[in-house]
């Protein structure tokens, strides 16, 4: 018999049934009669004038129907599209390309292979222009101005700052100890194993567009399409966005890429369904990137190790367009969480956004809007101060942590942290890994000349965007939603404004409803991703599903429970005040036998409801969170370094996470495993850089190194539980914590192994070459 497990149970996933049988429906599995295929011609140059595009040879291929250019789209006002950051971005260029692999033209054909044949023979005459790949050089006087379409003739996009500059400067002047470190967090790519794509189907009779699309935010996409293409007759009630099964998102499936827009335009113009699927190289080379922050971090402290001030200055490389998918008021995302887990009286941070000849993007890598950059910076620089003062990095952190009794805690940069116990998490991690014994072992090994390091990262995240007073995207407040319908037999359909990309919402949302209503998870079907049926929501990214939509699920269930109580009172001929709720049923106080189950109540809501009450049992909740949630954790990493090769070997990695109350511990652990691996990746392996001519280095899986099972250590996880005081379930979110926290733990471990040799910092990814070079510079040979 089906059981209602509710919160805290390792319920096996409902969605597995189709995935393990190969019966998922991902974007490229959708095939419609008469469907055409779109493929894209891309620029070999990072900056060039387009003098001419010659489609003739492509059009001569049987099956090639059209070659679409920026000039074609311009006739419909679609050559450019707005970004979320008040910039605009080319769909297809009219006369200039600004980065390598930029979309130049699109070929429409009857077959996938024929479209590719067409792409191969479209001839484009380019006139190469000077290339700027270094954002610092882009700001120098005399640098080529990349965005000639803008009135402001500068590569500087914006300046953003937060905190008290004067007070912070004063604290630095008066400080007993200061440290300063430049650190570069390189450009990386999210590389979900499924690339992006869509199928656009225009129905000329109904005047309706159906768009199957790899998107993490289907409702927002629907509104954007209506706003961008409204002048062409696309109205929001005639746009249906369907996000099918998504093969990993991690932020890379939030932006609108040109391929989607051209596919929609091609379907509207031809009346046929049009499919566009990018290949892996297109995905890495042109889709939204993450990081690319050049940071100068400074800390001020007393000699006893007490931190007094933080100052950070960042040059942010945004590529050719400012198309970061941030909330609108946050051009640098939530970088202002950079005071981290520490009690600072003074802090100041500033960021300057800059255009370069690289693809646009800026936040998509399993992180809540630049939290990883912030966390990496503070955890690295804190470690440097600790080492400089000769303090144990764990003692140093314990001394400076925000105290548990200080919550809710107002940070120097303006956030109100909801709850935390940072000492508890670090203590647990130290106990689990055997910290004292490891330090002893390290000291002994050092005497023998062996290189072993122990790195700590005690991060604080800021997720669940967000409260309407602060957070919006294009004016859309960042609430989320749930709709629960209970059928007469007590079975449930529940729909949410978010979209799972592997997080297991079909299971965890069912657990929330089971928890609140006592209906078995097996009796609850969770649906997401279809804008014709799901209530409006802002989607899944930045760890917002549980804090916002999950809360909406609980609130909708509570509305249902309130109504169910009235029906139960009617059925039991009792006063509402005399009823008590035990999960799954109402009973008369003192008479547990006089009870009605939620299923009986559901049936009665359609068959025998009290006079004056509407029939049916359903509810919708649009949840506007009162605050963000602040998950945290402490990670400890142990590395051994090969002096001969510079290779870093992770011996152990203990992750203690605190994400508040847990819905499904199995899924939480899985999220942490995955997040840790996406923290390992940029720490040791992944990087996309460009040569002086703007040629991408690392544009395919042969040279952009995702960790395999061999590089990935056997992660060890544990938890502490500090509920969020404002979330209806006390939950906080966990999907991105490990990606945020892990890189600094690994980098700190490497530097810890080398500090006594005089090494203060190595930029990630910490490749064997960089370590080998640092060792040789310090005179260490095998």
């Amino acid at each position, binding site marked *: 018999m089906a059981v209602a497990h509710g919160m805290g149970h390792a319920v*096996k996933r409902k969605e597995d049934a189709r*995935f393990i049988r190969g019966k998922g429906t991902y974007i490229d599995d959708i095939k419609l009669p008469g469907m055409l295929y779109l493929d894209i011609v891309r620029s070999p140059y990072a900056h060039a004038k387009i003098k001419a595009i010659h489609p003739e040879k492509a059009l001569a291929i049987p099956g090639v129907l059209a070659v679409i250019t920026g000039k074609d789209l311009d006739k419909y006002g679609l050559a450019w599209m707005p970004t979320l950051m008040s910039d605009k971005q080319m769909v297809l260029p009219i006369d200039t390309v600004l980065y390598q692999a930029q979309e130049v033209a699109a070929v429409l054909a009857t077959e996938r292979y024929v479209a590719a044949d067409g792409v191969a023979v479209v001839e484009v005459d380019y006139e190469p222009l000077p290339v700027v790949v270094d954002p610092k050089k882009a700001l120098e006087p005399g640098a080529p101005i990349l965005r000639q379409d803008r009135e402001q003739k500068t590569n500087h996009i914006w300046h953003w700052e937060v905190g008290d500059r004067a007070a912070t400067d004063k604290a630095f002047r008066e400080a007993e100890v200061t440290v300063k470190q430049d650190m570069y967090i390189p450009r990386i790519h999210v590389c979900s194993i499924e690339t992006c794509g869509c199928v656009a189907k225009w129905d000329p009779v109904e005047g309706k567009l159906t768009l199957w699309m790899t998107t993490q935010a289907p409702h927002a996409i629907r509104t954007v399409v209506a706003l961008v293409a409204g002048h062409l007759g696309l109205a929001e009630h005639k746009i249906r966005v369907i996000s099918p*099964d998504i093969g*990993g998102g991690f932020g890379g499936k939030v932006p609108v890429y040109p391929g989607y827009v051209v596919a929609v335009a091609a379907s509207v113009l031809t009346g046929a369904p049009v499919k566009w699927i990018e290949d*892996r190289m297109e995905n890495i080379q042109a889709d939204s990137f993450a990081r690319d922050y050049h940071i100068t971090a400074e800390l001020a402290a007393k000699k006893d190790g007490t931190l007094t001030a933080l100052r950070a200055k960042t040059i942010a490389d945004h590529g050719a367009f400012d198309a970061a998918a941030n909330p609108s008021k946050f051009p640098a995302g939530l970088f202002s969480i950079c005071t981290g887990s520490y009690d600072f009286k003074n802090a100041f941070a500033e960021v300057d956004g800059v255009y370069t000849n690289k693809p646009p993007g800026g936040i998509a890598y399993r992180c809540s809007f630049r939290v990883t950059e912030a966390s990496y910076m503070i955890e690295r620089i804190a470690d440097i101060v600790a080492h400089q003062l000769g303090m144990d990095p764990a003692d140093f952190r314990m001394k400076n942590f925000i105290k548990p009794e200080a919550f809710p805690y107002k940070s120097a940069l303006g956030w109100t942290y909801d709850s935390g116990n940072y000492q508890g998490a670090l203590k647990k991690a130290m106990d689990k890994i055997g910290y004292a014994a490891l330090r002893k072992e390290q000291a002994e090994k050092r005497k023998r000349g062996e290189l072993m390091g122990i790195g700590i990262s005690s991060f604080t995240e800021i997720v669940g965007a967000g409260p309407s007073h602060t957070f919006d995207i294009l004016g859309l407040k960042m609430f989320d939603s749930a709709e629960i319908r209970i059928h007469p037999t007590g079975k449930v359909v529940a729909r949410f404004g978010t979209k799972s990309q*592997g997080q297991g919402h079909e299971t965890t949302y069912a657990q929330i409803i089971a928890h609140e209503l006592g209906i078995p998870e097996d009796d609850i079907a969770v649906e997401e991703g279809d804008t014709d049926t799901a209530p409006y929501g802002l989607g899944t990214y930045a760890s917002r599903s549980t804090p916002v939509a999950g809360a909406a699920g609980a609130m909708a269930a509570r509305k249902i429970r309130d109504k169910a109580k009235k029906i139960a009172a009617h059925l039991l001929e009792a006063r509402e005040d005399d009823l008590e709720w035990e999960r799954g049923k109402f009973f008369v106080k003192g008479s547990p036998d006089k009870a009605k189950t939620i299923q009986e109540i559901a049936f009665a809501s359609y068959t025998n409801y009290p006079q004056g009450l509407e029939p049916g049992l359903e509810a919708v909740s649009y949840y506007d969170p009162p605050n963000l949630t602040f998950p945290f954790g402490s990670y400890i990493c142990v590395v051994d370094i090969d002096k001969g090769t510079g290779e870093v070997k992770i011996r152990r990695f203990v992750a203690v996470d605190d994400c508040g109350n847990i819905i499904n511990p199995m899924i939480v652990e899985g999220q942490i495993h995955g997040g840790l691996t996406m923290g390992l990746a940029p720490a040791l392996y992944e990087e996309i850089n460009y040569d002086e001519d703007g040629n991408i280095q690392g544009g395919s899986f042969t040279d952009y190194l995702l960790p395999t*099972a061999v590089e*990935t250590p056997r992660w060890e996880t544990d938890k502490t539980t500090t509920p969020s005081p404002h979330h209806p379930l006390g939950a906080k979110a966990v999907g991105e914590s490990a990606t945020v926290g892990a890189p600094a733990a690994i980098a700190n471990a490497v530097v810890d192994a080398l500090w006594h040799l005089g090494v203060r910092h190595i930029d990630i990814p910490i490749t064997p070459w960089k370590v080998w070079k640092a060792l040789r510079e310090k005179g260490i040979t095998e």
Partner: protein
Amino acid sequence: MAQRISVTVNGTTHEAEVEPRLLFVHFIREVLGLTGTHIGCDTTNCGACTVLLDGRPVKSCTIFAVQADGRAVMTVEGLARDGALHPVQEGFHEKHGLQCGFCTPGMMMTAYALLQRNANPTEEEIRWGISGNLCRCTGYVNIVEAVKYAAEKVRSQPAAAGGRS
């Protein structure tokens, strides 16, 4: 020039006229409609398209359909028998070895082949065994657990180990 091929997939023989350049993965997905086999890259790195060709795992994006002529193929759709899950599938579900599910079919086919070669792999052998398949969601820990689960099940119930090829 189209060529006629005959390929036995999950126990059923299919005949088709294919272009010589048609990738085997497109034959499986588009011609046969078996969309459980996925495509994740174009450089033979990710393994999402892994199927068994005459019992050996191959990345089906890197061979042509004509190369499979006269041979036996097993895809993810061939793992379960008469509705009963193969131990590998069971293991992935029981041990939470999948999240988005996109790498899962290729990963399971590789795991299946690994267990055919080595019924009792160590953790290191499992990790090397699946190192040609990329997963971005799970961090591999639970995939390793899933393969261990399947190995134990296959050893204790050899009859469940079959599958079609």
